[in-house]
């Protein structure tokens, strides 16, 4: 190993010595400039393979874990969504997504897929989930999903960070979320070497690569050239078993170059988070600013529903013939009902709800979970029917912003 990180041109430092399953001791190195979200390719322990190898990896993982279900982005009839996959090969490999404010298309002229309107949130906190059932004799039965084992396949670094944010809010508190979260036995992440047009994950330290919280990650260098790395001993075991080749210098170089490009491109899309936070605090009371940036917003709530970190739900009791059930249903803060309480409304004017969305992501999540609540996936931008662009809002906040 060279003693210099290709990406940062900085020294490697030794982190720890780990015992491999093979019984050999291995030194774990890392770039000295590494921060928790921008790992230097797991110490250049990169492997190389193709989609066939990814298939093998998935199969080995499923065998190892036994009886697990696969969830990920799947392509079906020209449509991509996050959900249960019947088979590994439903993964989108031959299409690209084109994302712009208020615009999404699947195209067959490219092959890099970022993400769909639905995210792992759809599994972790289903849009309508049963909480309990009450029988006619007023017996309360708590509903649950039964035992499951799940593997997430091909989720993105932004998705993975969104899970950590949701963990901070819901884990151990929401029984539905906790149960589903615990059912995830392994996570395979697809890193992004070419971000989408609305992505800005690197600016909020959520991507486009991943350094922890996964078992196996891969990045698509070229159409059928994948660079693999592991993030857990399970992942390491599987990659070794799959017999993957070590990546060559040319792969490593190309990988880091693409990552660096992706990062510099995305970083320029929004102002620095610290500046944003400062500006937000100063402009909370600037009514005309918030009215202006939300002037096209009609309060449809799409931004909340597609956001992988929005977690707000309404509890609704439904009376059926012979029993009642209590359900939790997604209900986001852009919606009029949000803030409506007996006797009044906390946020009657729409601009105050749009403002709350932005404030929650950038000022309040840090108080709740110790990090900003936006992972820069850009879904709220792409899926807003009116194309309201969060990046514009953020950049307008900071005068002399980068856009």
């Amino acid at each position, binding site marked *: 190993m060279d003693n210099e990180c290709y990406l940062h041109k900085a020294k490697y430092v030794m982190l720890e010595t780990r015992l491999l399953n093979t019984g050999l001791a291995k030194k774990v190195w890392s770039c000295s400039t590494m921060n928790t979200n921008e790992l230097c390719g797991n110490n250049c322990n990169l492997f190389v393979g193709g989609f066939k190898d990814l298939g093998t990896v998935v199969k080995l993982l499923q065998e190892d874990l036994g009886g697990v279900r696969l969830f990920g982005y799947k392509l079906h009839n020209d449509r991509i969504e996050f959900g249960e996959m019947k088979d590994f090969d439903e993964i989108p490999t031959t299409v690209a997504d084109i994302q712009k404010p208020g615009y999404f298309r699947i195209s067959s002229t490219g092959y890099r897929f970022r993400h769909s309107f639905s995210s792992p949130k759809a599994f972790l906190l289903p849009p309508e989930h049963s909480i309990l059932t009450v029988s006619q004799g007023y017996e309360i039965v708590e509903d649950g999903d039964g035992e499951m084992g799940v593997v997430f396949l091909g989720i993105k670094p932004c998705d993975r960070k969104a899970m950590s944010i949701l963990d901070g809010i819901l884990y151990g508190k929401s029984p539905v979320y906790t149960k589903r979260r615990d059912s995830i036995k392994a996570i395979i992440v697809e890193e992004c070497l070419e971000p989408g047009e609305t992505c800005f994950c690197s600016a909020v330290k959520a991507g486009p690569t991943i350094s922890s919280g996964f078992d196996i990650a891969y990045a698509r260098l070229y159409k059928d050239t994948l660079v693999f790395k592991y993030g857990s001993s399970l992942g390491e075991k599987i990659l070794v078993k799959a017999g993957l080749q070590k990546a060559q210098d040319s792969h490593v170089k190309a990988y880091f170059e693409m990552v660096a490009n992706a990062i510099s491109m995305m970083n320029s899309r929004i102002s620095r988070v610290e500046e944003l936070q400062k500006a937000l605090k100063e402009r909370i009371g600037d009514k005309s600013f918030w009215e202006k940036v939300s002037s096209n917003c009609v309060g449809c709530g799409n931004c909340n*529903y597609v956001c992988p970190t929005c977690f707000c739900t309404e509890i609704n009791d439904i009376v059926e013939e012979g029993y009642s059930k209590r359900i939790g249903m997604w209900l986001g803060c852009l919606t*009029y009902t949000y803030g409506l309480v007996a006797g009044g409304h906390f946020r009657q004017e729409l601009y105050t709800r749009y403002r709350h969305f932005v404030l929650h992501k950038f000022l309040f999540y840090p108080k709740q979970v110790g990090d900003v609540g936006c992972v820069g996936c850009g879904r709220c931008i792409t899926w807003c029917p009116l194309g309201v662009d969060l990046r514009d809002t953020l950049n307008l906040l900071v005068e002399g912003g980068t856009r």
Partner: protein
Amino acid sequence: MYRVAVVKLTSCSGCINEIVYAFTFSDIVSKYRIEYFTELVDVEEMGGVDIVFIEGSISNKHQEELVKSVRAKAGFVVAIGTCAVMGGVQSLRVGSDVNDVKKAVYAEPQYIEVYSDVKPVTDVIKVDFVIPGCPINGSALTSFLRKYAFGGLPIAVHESVCAECKRRGLECVLVARGVPCLGPVTVSGCGAICPSFGRGCYGCYGIKYFDLNREKLEAFSRRLAELGMDRDDIDALLKGYGFKVYSAIMRGGEA
């Protein structure tokens, strides 16, 4: 046993079908007795009842008086359907010469007594609960009837069709296919039926009585026009269901 009446004004009777259907559930029939309902029971005059469901909009003086007398005889009034709540499709004629409209529809227009305007029930009397929809969603009605029997009411969720669309896990037809969809400005309740069939919402639950103003509605109309929808069609859809809200917004008021 709660005593129920159903009163029909100007409408297509689509919602009436949903009411009839709701009363086929045994747990509902066991708690309600239908006292007055022209389509079901042979009673000439409505007496005092606990709940009345009013379907349709008001087209003339006679209906207006009727609605007022119904209010006086009922403990709880539910406006059923977009017509009763916001005006409904018959509002399309507002703005045209009423005599031309009469001539276009009826062979002997001289017998038709009709206002030039359309009045939703909610304009004339105080209603206690509204269930919009064209027609209403049957499950909203059964949910009301079941909860009312327990001494409660369904929670009213004020949101767009988009919320239901997303909770159903549907991909947005507007964003992903460029299909004009009125979901963002339309009151929820249908369960996003149209987007579930790959077509755009045409606003049959009426436009939102909250969060919209002229500027926002115009921004949204421009968006639909960009997607190739005809300007006149956009205006017809916005006006044709949620007339009451639409005209208030166009007069410059906030919804």
